[in-house]
């Protein structure tokens, strides 16, 4: 008994209608990019024009001054020196926080009793603004990079932990039974069912937590440090150097946007099986 269902999923060459449809999608995408660029240019132009005419540049600086500053930093190596330390602390904090969060999330998801016992404590810990821990971490780990790593790790940990935990609990029991009957061991079920199924949740957790990790590091740098983007901003603020403050803020904004787009691409690839 042969039935051809291939037509239903379209394995043949694309028809004219399909090509037109896809070209339309591309055109729309291009339009979005163009408008985004125009918006940015208009904003910068207005800023440049208003600075000195409507508002004192002492408060708002100006794009030309800010980019001049950025250029100077780029050339004299200051940008690299400060940005690398901030990114390094963020990355290490992110890796530590998400690894522990993921492992604990799996563990709690697996042992419901443990989760139930510890639930109120976890809720209480979660409710603490993690930034309130920063001074404590500085006492514990000193003013070096370790305290910044600790701040960003503690923020990332909770987001990833809670998402992994929910992800594990949301696994469809049908998949678990079916794979067990097929011969899966405990680890087999974990590897082929629970982890991939929780991935959607975990990725969402990671996406939310990366900007937080950056924020955690920068806040740590605000409080006490001698290097890093947070340090530059704090120091410039002390000197009423708005050019440098804006330059620092712009670096953070760009870095945040880049990290986010990388995560988005990773998400798209990891979850390519989803409808």
């Amino acid at each position, binding site marked *: 008994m042969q039935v051809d269902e291939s037509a239903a999923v379209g394995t043949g060459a694309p028809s004219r209608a399909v090509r037109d449809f896809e070209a339309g999608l591309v055109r729309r995408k291009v339009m979005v990019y163009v408008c985004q660029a125009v918006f940015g240019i208009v904003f910068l132009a207005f800023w440049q024009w208003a600075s000195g005419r409507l508002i004192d540049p002492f408060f708002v600086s100006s794009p030309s001054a800010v980019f001049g500053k950025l250029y100077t930093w780029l050339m004299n190596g200051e940008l690299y020196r400060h940005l690398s330390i901030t990114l390094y602390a963020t990355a290490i904090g992110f890796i530590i926080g998400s690894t522990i969060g993921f492992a604990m999330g799996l563990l709690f998801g697996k042992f419901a009793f443990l989760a139930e016992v510890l639930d109120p404590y976890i809720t209480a810990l979660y409710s603490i603004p993690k930034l309130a821990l920063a001074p404590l971490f500085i006492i514990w780990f000193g003013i070096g990079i370790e305290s910044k790593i600790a701040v960003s790790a503690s923020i990332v940990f909770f987001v990833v932990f809670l998402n992994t935990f929910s992800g594990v609990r949301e696994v469809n029991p*049908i998949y678990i039974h079916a794979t067990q*009957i097929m011969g899966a061991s405990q680890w*087999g079920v974990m590897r082929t069912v629970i982890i991939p199924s929780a991935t959607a949740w975990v990725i969402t957790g990671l996406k939310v937590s990366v900007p937080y990790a950056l924020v955690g590091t920068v806040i740590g740098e605000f409080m006490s440090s001698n290097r890093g983007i947070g340090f530059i901003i704090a120091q410039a603020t002390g000197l009423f150097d708005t050019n440098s403050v804006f330059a620092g803020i712009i670096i953070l904004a760009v870095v945040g946007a880049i990290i986010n787009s990388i995560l988005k691409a990773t998400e798209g690839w990891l979850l390519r099986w989803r409808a």
Partner: protein
Amino acid sequence: MAGAAISIDGVDKRYIGRGREVVALDHVSLEIEEGEFVAFVGPSGCGKSTLLNMIAGIIPMTSGSIMHEGRKVTAINRHVGYLTQADSVLPWRTVEQNVGLPLEYRGMPAAQRQKRVAEMLALVDLKGFDKAFPKELSGGMRKRVALAQMLAYGPDTLLMDEPFGALDAQLKLVMQQQLLRIWQEQKKTIVFVTHDLAEAIALASRVIVFSGRPGKIKYVEEIKIPYPRDVFKVRFLREFETAYDNLWRELSPEIAKGEDL
């Protein structure tokens, strides 16, 4: 070992629901021979799926015992194939990764696995879809992936719980015919739960009617239609009509009983 592939002996299932004890299955005994195609029919909630899940070892029984291929079922039964109405194909794996899954669990080397997967995909007419994700397939194709996956590791007993329930009427017939062909070629023992009498008669050599709560075996009908059968035509045979009349006579009061609850 010849004789019974599955012997169910005095199985009870009771559970506590809303503060009172519910008897889902009441002392059910049944022998299923090797190579038999047995269908369970009955009103919803009669325990037919529960019994199937007990053979699979997913649900523990309150008392009694089930022997499968000479082994007592006490935990997850890894010697059966299991297929339900729900989509059990893993959405994050491609077709070939899904079909190869039970072989992966058994530690079969990749090269050998690949060969076996190709054979299975050919068996269920799914060649050329190896790299597709389940979301790219139709419901009927996903069902065939699940079927290939179940057959890949060669269990002698297949447990199926309304496997084609979610498919449209025509596709259902196609799948039934394919299942009959595979059953005959590979000499499997099949236990098939359905609420569709016509499906039960078209496929099975023996149809078991369960009564509503508490679940009991009420009636057994041997289907005298010789194999190989053509599921598209069986319903016009006299034997089909006789079996249908007998089964309906036994089943209809049970369904009415269920409605009164």
